[in-house]
């Protein structure tokens, strides 16, 4: 009787926990940065800047063969960048080139998603291609400055971009 009671109590507990999702935990999977990330329908300049930043990180991470998340942490702090360089053997020059490539992909993604008109995409690409390497390195040394620049070059065009928003 006692044994049956123990079996019933154990099965009830485990069954209840499994039914409540106890075995369903899967950590959120990190997406392959080389796969295109769908652009949600951006309504404001801030939302465009957000998606642009994510696309740029994807592009740079894809070029470096790392995850977008690992790259974002590397760009967040100088210590993060040092750890990243040590772990993946990627120096500042390679990182800066990848960030530049990432920004170009962001323009491509924005254009493909219809969030950026080709009229704007062409000069933006040109501007990005012409960022000197030293300046690009300087940008990755200061993530805040990098993002300000993203907003910076979207900023002046903001009113025009907003006219092209879907």
């Amino acid at each position, binding site marked *: 009787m*006692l*044994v049956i*009671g*123990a*079996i019933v*109590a*154990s*099965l009830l*507990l*485990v069954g209840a*926990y*499994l039914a*409540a*999702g*106890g*075995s369903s*935990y899967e*950590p*959120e999977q*990190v*997406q392959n940065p080389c796969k295109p990330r769908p652009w949600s329908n951006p309504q404001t300049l*801030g*939302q465009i*800047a*957000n998606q642009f*930043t*994510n696309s740029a*990180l994807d592009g740079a991470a894809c070029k470096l063969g790392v*995850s*977008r*998340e*690992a790259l*974002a*942490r590397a*760009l*967040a*702090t100088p*210590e*993060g960048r040092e750890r990243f360089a040590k772990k993946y053997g990627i120096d500042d020059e390679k990182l800066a080139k990848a960030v530049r490539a990432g920004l170009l992909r962001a323009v491509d993604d924005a254009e493909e998603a219809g969030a950026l008109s080709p009229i704007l995409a062409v000069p933006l690409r040109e501007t990005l291609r012409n960022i000197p390497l030293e300046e690009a390195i300087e940008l990755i040394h200061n*993530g*805040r400055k990098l*993002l*300000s620049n*993203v*907003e910076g070059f979207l900023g002046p065009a903001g009113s025009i971009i907003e006219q092209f928003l879907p």
Partner: protein
Amino acid sequence: MALAAVPAALLARRVGPGRAAAVGLAIFAGAGLACGLADELSTLILARCVQALGGAAAVTAALELLPATVGSERRAATVWAAAGATGAALGPALGGILTELVSWQSIFFLQVPVALIAAVPILAVARHEAATGVIEPELRRTGRPHLWANLALAMVSAAIAAALFLLVLLLIEGWRLSPITAAIVVSVMPLSALLGARLTEYVADARSRAAAGAILVSGGLAGLAFLPKATIALTIPPQILVGVGLSLVLSALTETALGGRAPQAIHGGWTISARHAGVVIGLLALTPIFTADIDQQRHDAINAGTAVILDSPVNPLLKLGLAEKVSERLEEEKGKVPTIGPAFEPLPDNPAERAEVEQLKGELQDQLDRGATHAFSTSFILAALLGLIALFPIALSKEVEL
């Protein structure tokens, strides 16, 4: 303790249980003081080893002394086994409270007066033994230890060690509870063990009690492996099962191992050895598994957390600030699942941004908490399996009436 218990019991037989218990308690108290005063790990470990020698002598000799107090060997075995089960369940809770309220050293300092007070009534027996100097020759004979009961004890003890130690680790390292809160949470187990001790009185068949206990311990461990959420309340039902189960199984198996065997101290020594060997083997087997799992889960949770930040609708500059602070916290609390709340302070003034950041904070902490909880799952499942495997030796064990 696993190595010292049987030799200590043999010594107790040779010099008399009163003297062995008195000397054992004195050594235990002295070594406890040394533990509390230890300023480096090697000293602490050495003092703990000495303490185990004293403890082994006192605990095994106590089994020889108990029949005179409680009336019969069978009753003595029951009381002794119940005391061991309650102690096993109570230890982590009491240790956590003392660590938080005073210090970890206080655990050892408290043992000194407790051991000395316990030695006082034994001194009279020790003096009597010293005066007479006679150990009855027939008591020196020792029979074979009860293989199946001791094997089952070792397996169940490995499972119980997982329940006690892994749960405390999950609460403190994984869910970032303070030691005192963790101690209060795990006190459900000793309280449930008291309930299990009451059940013991109603079921005479030791094998049924042992089997039911092992099943309950395994069921509780499986419950801990499948926690649906990182919530204290959800740990309570599994703890009740483990607590009731450990009380039933430890006392039943100890009684079985001692049943019809003489001298009791030697066979009590075997049960102590089996239990402690089980704890050691359980921790040795499970620690590398959960350490590797927690590293992997931490890595996954950090990636998932970063993805949550990046995919959030928060302004990119604000995101970068958050990423910086979260990275700092991850570094500060290396090896632990961090509390990321402070990384989100101060919250933005803008109500819309504030709401977004609040939501982001919740999602990120949820990722970290779920990752930490899941990191212990494999170890809990393996421990549950150990408890179930113990059913085989339990089925093969036979109780011999005293």
